[in-house]
């Protein structure tokens, strides 16, 4: 039972990350009809926003180390600590949550800039060309990041208070040994909130209604006198924000490096295709389902029967789904069919 619950949590956690990335990817695809291979790079940019915020907060000055007396020793002390003492230390500790506030405007600007500057010109071109140009963009973005931050992973720890593990077992009245890292639980909660937020936004606001209408029939919405293009620009910005937030929150789990975007990109594309191109619900469901399948496949019981199954199970599922249900799990009729 414990093992089962742990694997379920693991799967939900992984699935949360997949679902968030796939959600942004599907938003861009369903509304703008753009196959965005640079979406992984946006995820990576979000993670590096967290790194940047942490670096800015810890800009340091060399001060004399008082604890060492028999020679002159110097240590780096962040300005925030010098100015505000313990409050400053606390702020530095909370670098990752604070970075979320910065990620939103930054990624919105990046997203809108990309759409206006580049993506806009590719609406009428073939999907192959869209894939190619965004693939080039992804390379450029990741190399820029490497030029600034180097090739090594940048550790960005979570706040101290949630860096330990949560006693999930005793909370639920199960065995004491069942523990799970706090930050991963937070990530799961965060992912659910963002997903619900995006769905509520699309379901209950006028803007969301227009976007949904545009997804269904772009031409008619345009004929009704609505500037669809402008709405879609904002949707692309929104997709970038979702990817960026997913990345920033993921930074404590996996220290970001410049190619993390490419690693996630392939998986998230598989998730989107399994869910059905252009279906938001499908992307989220497929994200969680694939996450859970992957974590159960990595149990030793399964590995004993099919060695290496944990490595390939997602792709295997994708191949089977694509061949059996060509539209994916929840694909809409008429979107991206052969």
């Amino acid at each position, binding site marked *: 039972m414990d093992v089962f619950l742990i694997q379920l949590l693991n799967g939900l956690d992984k699935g949360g990350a997949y679902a968030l990335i796939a959600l942004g990817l599907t938003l861009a695809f369903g509304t703008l009809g753009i*196959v965005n291979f640079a979406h992984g790079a946006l995820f990576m940019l979000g993670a590096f926003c967290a790194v940047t915020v942490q670096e800015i907060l810890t800009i340091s000055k060399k001060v004399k180390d008082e604890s060492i007396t028999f020679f002159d020793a110097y240590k780096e002390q962040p300005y925030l600590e010098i100015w505000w003492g313990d409050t400053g230390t606390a702020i530095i500790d909370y670098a990752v949550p604070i970075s979320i506030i910065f990620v939103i405007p930054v990624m919105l600007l990046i997203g809108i800039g990309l759409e206006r500057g*580049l993506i806009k*010109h590719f609406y*009428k*071109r*073939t*999907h*192959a*060309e869209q*894939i*190619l*140009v965004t*693939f*080039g*963009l*992804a*390379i*450029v973005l990741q*190399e*820029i990041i*490497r*030029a600034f931050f180097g090739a090594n992973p940048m550790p960005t720890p979570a706040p101290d208070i949630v860096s330990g593990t949560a006693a999930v077992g005793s909370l639920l009245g199960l065995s004491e040994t069942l523990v799970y890292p706090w930050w991963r639980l937070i990530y799961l909660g965060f992912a659910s909130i963002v997903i619900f937020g995006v769905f509520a936004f699309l379901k209950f606001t006028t803007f969301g209604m227009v976007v949904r209408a545009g997804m269904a029939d772009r031409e008619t919405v345009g004929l009704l006198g609505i500037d669809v293009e402008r709405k879609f620009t904002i949707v692309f910005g929104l997709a970038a924000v979702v990817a960026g937030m997913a990345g920033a929150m993921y930074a404590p789990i996996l220290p970001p490096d410049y190619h993390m975007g*490419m690693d996630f990109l*392939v998986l998230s*594309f*598989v998730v989107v*295709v399994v869910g059905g*191109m252009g279906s938001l619900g499908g992307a989220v469901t497929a994200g969680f389902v694939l996450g859970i399948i992957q974590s159960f496949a990595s149990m030793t019981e399964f590995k004993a029967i099919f*060695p*290496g199954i944990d*490595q*390939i199970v997602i*792709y*295997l599922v*994708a*191949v089977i789904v*694509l*061949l059996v249900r*060509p539209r994916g799990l929840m694909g809409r009729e008429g979107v*991206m069919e*052969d």
Partner: protein
Amino acid sequence: MKKLTLKNNWLVMLIFSTVVLTAPIWLSPLGANYPDLLQKFAIFGIFAIGFNILFGLTGYLSFGHATFLGIGSYSAVWCFKLFSMNVLPGIIIGTLIAGLFALIIGYVSLRRSGIYFSILTLAFAQMFYSLAYSVLTPITNGETGLQLSNEDPRYIDALFGVAVEPGLPSTNLFGQIMSGYPGFYFCAILLIIGFYISLKIFRSPFGLKLRAIKSNQTRMRYTGFNPRPYLLTAFIISGMYAGLAGSLMAVTDPLAGAERMQWTASGEVVLMTILGGSGTLLGPLFGVVMIKYFENIFSAMNPSTLSEFFNFLPEFLQQVMVSITQHFVGQGWHLTLGALFMLVVIFLPGGVMEGVTLVNKYIRLKLGLVNTASKTKQDPVRKNLVDPIAQPLTEQTNDSQKEEVK
């Protein structure tokens, strides 16, 4: 006189072979005439030509072609280990096994088209890549990579009593050791053969059917052709080209690692083909030479060579130029590549070959080579445009686009 145009296969092959075989001579002023780089040109040239048969003709964008490259490498190295250090069985077996895998992967993936096909090939590529690192370690030797060793049986060599020398044996073609220039010429001859096959495919009814698949599959079905067998054949042929390239990599350096199969490696061949001009015969080769040459030059540069280069400028400007350009060379070479690639896709979707055609057309117009009489008949320039050697990519997308808009 009129008969001897570029439409004549033998003339094309004559020019092509001369250019390829004399490459060490005419590349020496560019500082690219050392065998290592020349071998790379030839090997990636074969890879890109093969990829172009699939993507350029049928428009099916495979993001998993590096799988076949890796499979070719592994098979060739196993052949060297088990049978003989002679390269011929190695490349034949490497090509055939890659073709076999292409048959399996292609049979499944080609049931879908468009982006789904790309994702399916990508999924298969990632599967093979992960397996090569984990479960298949007995075959692939995991992260270390598959290497030759002195304990290898080499049954055929042993049968013929080839003298065992101390140290690791090197690959050979009936005694001629395959490294340095002999290695290049071996690759170059295979490149010429590969180019000839590709030329034949481009100018055959089979090639026309592949083009028909790209422009409109529905119409093709109405005319009574089933696209699937043609697609599968093209996929297998291009997989075999990749396998050949992979086994040649093993010939020039008998070591096979799984990183050859990573999906970014598949992305590289896509880059090369697009940059040169997909759907044209020579385009992919241009792309390969450009990317591999500039990779070689640019990644060797550093700030000090740059400041030497900008020596003619005033000192202030020199520093500015160096500080800007140093991000694009050395480690930053990939940045240049990505940016260049984006520019090409945005402004010149037909790649370098489209650029050549445009410039050619412009010069002809400026020089007044197009006289009014032939203009009305739309003869020389138009005809050059539809010639397979310089066919631009743009025209075929119209139909499929119209359908997608609906």
